């Protein structure tokens, strides 16, 4: 006998999220039973949950490839190619986040089971963010994404920088969320609904609402711009990335950013097509500024975590350019494909780079200077080779996912509004800043191979696995991008 309620709820649509949410609660109880010296059991259990979600996602891919998109819970969430693709990215990132922490936490004396539980919670937030079809869900999912991350960045509590990072991240994050929710309130007032599709109808049919909804959208952009670290809302990034424990930095540099972009695209493309040229222009300007600032300030950094923080700001700029290219609906699916492809390439490359940073970092949290990479070319040839690949990919050199991602982004921007001087200018800025970025990325390679040094690194099996997987992924995306890009392009199904 089937329960009628369970049929109409459509639990299948949110199955991966449910698995992780349920498992996180189970883990919370298990963790109490696990003795303090055996906390790595919690990590392995967390991995089991994430793998379960991965299996569920795998079945969903087949299911929704046939159906297209599907709304669930009376249209509160939408499951489509876009959300499934991003959920795959989130689950993979979370798996890497667990693997990176496996040896890092005990080495640094901060091993606690709650790390893994909080990691699962923030992953749920990201996954729901990618499915949200209602501004209320966007808001609560953003908070679920953020609050565990505030705690995780302060996880190395005895280190002064870690707690400062957490407080700074928290205060600015809460500040940005209140902008976001005020923007949602204004949009609700102007349109009478919080449903994305409903907003789209109300905005087109009623010119009276335009100033109000435009300001509402602007405030929404402030909140999401903060999450993706776009200029001028990037100020928290360097200090937080540097202060947080490195596995957390790796996880949030990918997860929080992709979550922010997921919501940004859903909200802009679905709810505000009527004012697309306005937000397109605004986002293009922000994209240009973000690329310039991120790349130029990154040159002068000597700390690898800070350098990667500015690099992550710069990459937000490239992704924003593709978001701006989604302003015209004919071009939207290509542009969104470029966004999710870039996010995947960036995720693999950046996680790999942070893995190397973790291997080089010493137990007291020092060893994060770029100079500490000296001599790695001799002592750890394979790791140095992988790091070189990641740096080349972040620059956008051939046979790496980074290059293909950038090509797609620039192509999307050029196609978006043919002959538009602003987008053309931003594309030129993008190309030039990519050249500039070679300075600081290649410096890391130079230090590894050309400079004499101890070249000390600790590389346990978990890190080796992550390193091999991310390097392999970066290469695959660089050499045969076609299949993945096609999947990415089918991502947003109307």
């Amino acid at each position, binding site marked *: 006998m089937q329960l009628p309620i369970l049929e109409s709820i459509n639990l299948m649509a949110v199955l991966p999220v449910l698995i992780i949410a349920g498992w996180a609660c189970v883990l919370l109880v298990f963790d109490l039973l696990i003795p303090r010296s055996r906390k790595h059991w919690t990590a392995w259990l967390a991995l089991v949950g994430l793998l379960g979600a991965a299996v569920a996602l795998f079945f969903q891919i087949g299911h929704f490839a046939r159906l297209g998109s599907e709304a669930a819970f009376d249209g509160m969430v939408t499951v489509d190619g876009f959300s499934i693709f991003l959920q795959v990215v989130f689950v993979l990132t979370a798996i890497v986040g667990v693997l990176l922490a496996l040896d890092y936490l005990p080495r640094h004396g901060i091993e606690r089971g709650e790390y893994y539980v*909080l990691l699962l919670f923030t992953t749920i937030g990201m996954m729901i963010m990618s499915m949200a079809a209602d501004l209320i869900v966007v808001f609560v999912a953003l908070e679920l994404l953020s609050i565990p991350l505030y705690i995780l960045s302060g996880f190395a509590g005895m280190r002064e920088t870690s707690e400062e990072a957490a407080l700074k991240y928290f205060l600015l994050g809460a500040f940005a969320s209140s902008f976001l929710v005020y923007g949602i309130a204004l949009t609700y007032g102007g349109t009478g609904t919080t449903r994305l599709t409903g907003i789209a109808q109300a905005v087109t049919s009623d010119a009276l609402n335009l100033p109000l909804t435009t300001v509402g959208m602007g405030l929404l952009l402030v909140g999401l711009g903060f999450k993706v670290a776009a200029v001028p809302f990037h100020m928290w990034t360097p200090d937080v990335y540097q202060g947080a424990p490195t596995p957390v930095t790796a996880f949030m540099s990918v997860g929080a950013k992709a979550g922010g972009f997921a919501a940004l695209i859903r909200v802009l493309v679905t709810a505000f097509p009527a004012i697309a040229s306005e937000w397109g222009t605004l986002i293009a300007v922000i994209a240009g500024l973000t690329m310039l600032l991120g790349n130029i300030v990154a040159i002068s950094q000597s700390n690898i975590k800070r350098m990667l923080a500015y690099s992550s700001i710069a990459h937000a700029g490239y992704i924003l350019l593709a978001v701006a290219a989604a302003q015209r609906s004919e071009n939207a699916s290509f542009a969104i494909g470029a966004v999710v492809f870039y996010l995947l390439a960036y995720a693999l490359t950046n996680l790999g780079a942070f893995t190397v940073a973790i291997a080089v970092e010493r137990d007291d949290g020092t060893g994060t200077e770029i100079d500490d990479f000296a001599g790695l070319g001799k002592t750890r040839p394979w790791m140095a080779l992988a790091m070189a690949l990641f740096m080349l990919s972040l620059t956008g050199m051939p046979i790496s996912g980074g290059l293909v991602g950038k090509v797609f982004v620039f192509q999307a921007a050029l196609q978006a509004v043919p002959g538009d001087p602003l987008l053309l200018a931003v594309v030129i800025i993008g190309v030039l800043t990519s050249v500039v970025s070679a300075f600081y990325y290649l410096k890391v390679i130079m230090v590894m191979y050309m400079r004499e040094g101890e070249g000390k690194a600790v590389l346990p099996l978990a890190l080796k696995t992550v390193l091999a997987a991310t390097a392999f992924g970066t290469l695959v995306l660089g050499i045969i991008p076609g299949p993945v890009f096609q999947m990415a392009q089918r991502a947003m199904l109307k």
Partner: protein
Amino acid sequence: MTITPITIAFFIMAAFTLGGSLGVVTNRNLFHAALYLVLALFGVAGLFVLLEAPFLAAVQVLVYVGAIAVLITITIMVTRRIMGVTESVNRQWPLAAGVSAIMAITLGFVVLDRFAGKLPVAAVPGDNIVRLGEALVNYDAYLVPFEVASVLLLAAMIGAIVVARE
């Protein structure tokens, strides 16, 4: 505009809200700032009553005044040594005031642009609170945000324990 008891009540509550807010952001003494916060929160509760949302007014008093404001006061007491700072604002305060003024003008402008003038107002249905409660746990209504918020509160609780322990 005729002066009725309702408008007088509105002005009193608005004065509580805005005056309290001003006190929070300008008062040098943190204790006094927290008391002003309580005043502003009560003002908001009063506005909720005028808006015929008695349930939210009650929640406002219980959650904000009863829990959050008390929590803030306790924190100020525990970290008492940070009190008595002579300078309560940083040197960038003129810039902050500028940003705040621009924001106030923009928001005021769009609100007046859209909502000035009289709107037809419908009555609040009598079973409003009942429906609110049902919708929170109805899978065809607000089950998803409700559950996400529950997980959020659980995460915040664990987080606070992690931070505060040891």
